[in-house]
């Protein structure tokens, strides 16, 4: 358990920063004090992380960006897990036909590169609010969860314990809620952190293509976008948000690994 402390602390710290952004940020993240005179200032005692082309404070935007980036990622994970668990469980508990249909559908969704799938969806929905962006990210990220949940459910169904419960006539839904779902928790937990680690950079990539969070809201992705064409001269617009993305992804990846290790040691 102690090995989980590092990544958990890191994730918790980032979440805390996101929550406390309004109190931590030295400036209003949307304020443009002087778009001509104060634009693109390098880091200085007044602006620790420099300013962007609108003269907005990058530190404040990175802090507020944590809110949208992490919030969107977390929400998208929730959506992906719910969808994935539903599809996976339905495939495992339903008949052969349901199973085949759902799993071939999952394969199909997996065979389309996720970024392309996202583009297709975003092209259809038009400009997105942060909440709908999370929804879309989640809707394109449920497939691995579905596969794992199906696999795990089938394994649990085959166990002595569940088989006997089944024989005793426990209704399927109660069986699912009472006996299978708790058994799925470790799988889902590991999967959640992996999905989270995938969602954070994906939000950034979408912003890079100009389809992410809309202005004036800050996200790590759209701060980097402001550096477009000036990566060398305005490195602070890339480095600080990238640090945020890397830290969040790193923590989630580490957590997933350690949880798996801990679970492995226990079994």
């Amino acid at each position: 358990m102690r090995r989980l402390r590092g990544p958990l602390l890191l994730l918790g710290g980032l979440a805390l920063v996101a929550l406390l952004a309004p109190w931590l940020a030295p400036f209003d993240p949307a304020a443009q004090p002087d778009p001509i005179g104060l634009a693109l200032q390098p880091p200085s005692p007044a602006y620790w992380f420099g300013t962007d082309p609108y003269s907005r404070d990058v530190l404040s935007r990175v802090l507020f960006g944590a809110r949208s980036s992490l919030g969107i990622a977390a929400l998208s994970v929730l959506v992906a897990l719910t969808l994935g668990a539903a599809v996976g469980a339905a495939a495992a508990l339903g008949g052969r036909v349901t199973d085949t249909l759902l799993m071939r559908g999952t394969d199909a969704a997996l065979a389309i590169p996720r970024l392309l799938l996202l583009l297709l969806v975003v092209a259809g929905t038009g400009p997105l609010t942060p909440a709908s962006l999370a929804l879309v990210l989640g809707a394109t990220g449920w497939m691995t969860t579905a596969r794992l949940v199906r696999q795990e459910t089938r394994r649990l169904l085959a166990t002595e314990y569940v088989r006997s419960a089944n024989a005793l006539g426990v209704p399927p839904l109660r069986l699912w809620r009472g006996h299978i779902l708790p058994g799925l928790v470790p799988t889902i937990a590991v999967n959640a952190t992996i999905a989270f680690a995938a969602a954070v950079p994906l939000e950034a990539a979408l912003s890079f293509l100009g389809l992410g969070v809309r202005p004036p809201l800050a996200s790590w992705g759209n701060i980097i976008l402001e550096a477009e064409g000036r990566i060398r001269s305005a490195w602070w617009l890339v480095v600080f948000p990238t640090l945020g993305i890397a830290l969040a992804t790193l923590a989630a990846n580490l957590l997933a690994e350690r949880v798996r290790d801990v679970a492995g040691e226990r079994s």
Partner: protein
Amino acid sequence: MRRIVLAFALSLLAACAGDAARGPVGGTVIIAAAADADALVPPLVGSSQGRLVSELLFDRLVEIGPSLNTVGDADFRGRLAERWNWSADSLAITFFLDPDARWHDGQPVVAADVVAGLSVIRDPANGSSLRVNLVGLDSLTVQGERQVTMHFGRRTAEQFYAASMIFPLPAHLLPTDSGSALRTSTYARAPVGSGPYRFVSWEPLSRIELAAVEDHYRGRARLDRVVVSISPEPATGLAKIWAEEADVWEIVPAGDIAEAVRHPHVRLVSSTAFDYGFAAFNFRDPRNRERPHPFFTDRGLRRAIAMAVDRPAIVRAIFDTLAMPLYGPFVRLQHTADTTIRQIPFDRAAAATILDSLGWRVDPRDGIRRRGTQRLRFTTLVPGSSRNRERAAVLMQEQLRQVGVDMQIERAENRTFTAKREAGQFDMVVGGWLTTPSPRGLRGTWATNSADGQGTQNDGRYSNSAFDAAVIAGLDALEPADVRRHFREAYQIIVDDAAALFLYELRVMAAVHRRFTLPAWRPDGWWRTLPEWTVDPAQRLPRDARPTAN
């Protein structure tokens, strides 16, 4: 300041008046472009990359001179037509084709090719952007192999300009069935033209290669080869310029000028352009176009919003000196341009007072103005592909917030943007128009939308009959002075009405490799002088070596 810039632009134009300067033959120019061409045959082209390539491949009948004066015929030069004469009533112009003009396959250019060129533009299925310029041209008659006559319904000042829109096309090579098949024909992918360069290859998403025509009727182009090399990221395209992997980048962003100056092999060339940007109000309800907009039909409100926006500061912040504040729906290159149009001044305090007097009071809870239950909140549509326009919107958003106006930004990728703009699904739109030397486009972009093709691009549905009348009077006038007077009146009306916040007019800064000697940059298509470019033999790069015969 304004006058100096104008004088500068004019002197640039004057510099390229002389025809084809001769110089050493040989060399290769690599043009880095941000996107692939959409077509290579002039009437089918929409993108600027397509225009560049197609206008090197094909010659026009006649071409407008560097003065860009569209009135009369004094400033036009013969191309495939070596001369022309007017009928006594000025309703017909007869063109005489150059007997030396040949297609790249060796066939002579004949009268039937002019007819073919015109019918491709005219066929609505081809969606040619040249078509609107043909208004007034009734028919074309052929007299023998090398003589065609254009017949006009009535006299107008820009009658001759229509003729300059026609690119003859090789009738013997075009697909024989209806014109709409041209776009998907194999000819359109490997066109045989009449211009100073001939087609060599077109690799999708990668490059287009052209080679000089040895025995061109106007003389051989100096450079041997022209390559358009495609880099979708502007940063990559520019980096190729810095690394001498490419020679020309058309529009260097303001933020990269400093970098360009650091490279001794790069020369910056500046000129004015035909693009302008604006933020237009929607006069109709975005949810139901039949109804008026809930508040933007109020002229006082529009003027107050215009007053709250510091347009010169926005232009400076985005473009530094690479754009100029806009004075109305026109660019300085058009002969009707008038920078004395009275503007709505930037005055935040006055804007706030006017808003108060109109009943829009600041709600102390969120700082946003309300009138009754209505909040002064609206959505501005911007295209995702244009960082500059998004920047303009973000800057306006913050300025408006300071007077209690809540502006939301809706960024949509291009197709969605256009679909929404055309359907009127926006409160405000940050748009841009690419104009032409003729002010004719105004009838489509700002005049009242009506069934006869007027105001078809007026997506905000601005409507003022006095404006419409002034525009039409200007287009019908014959004397240049009258043309200008009517347009001046129209410009002042639309600015006073605050139909839009007229934001900026672009100046472009191009980066060109220093080994080239080139005539002045033509703002209506710099490539028009490309056949005159030369490379100093002492500064040749390996890629300038003469291509081996094959």
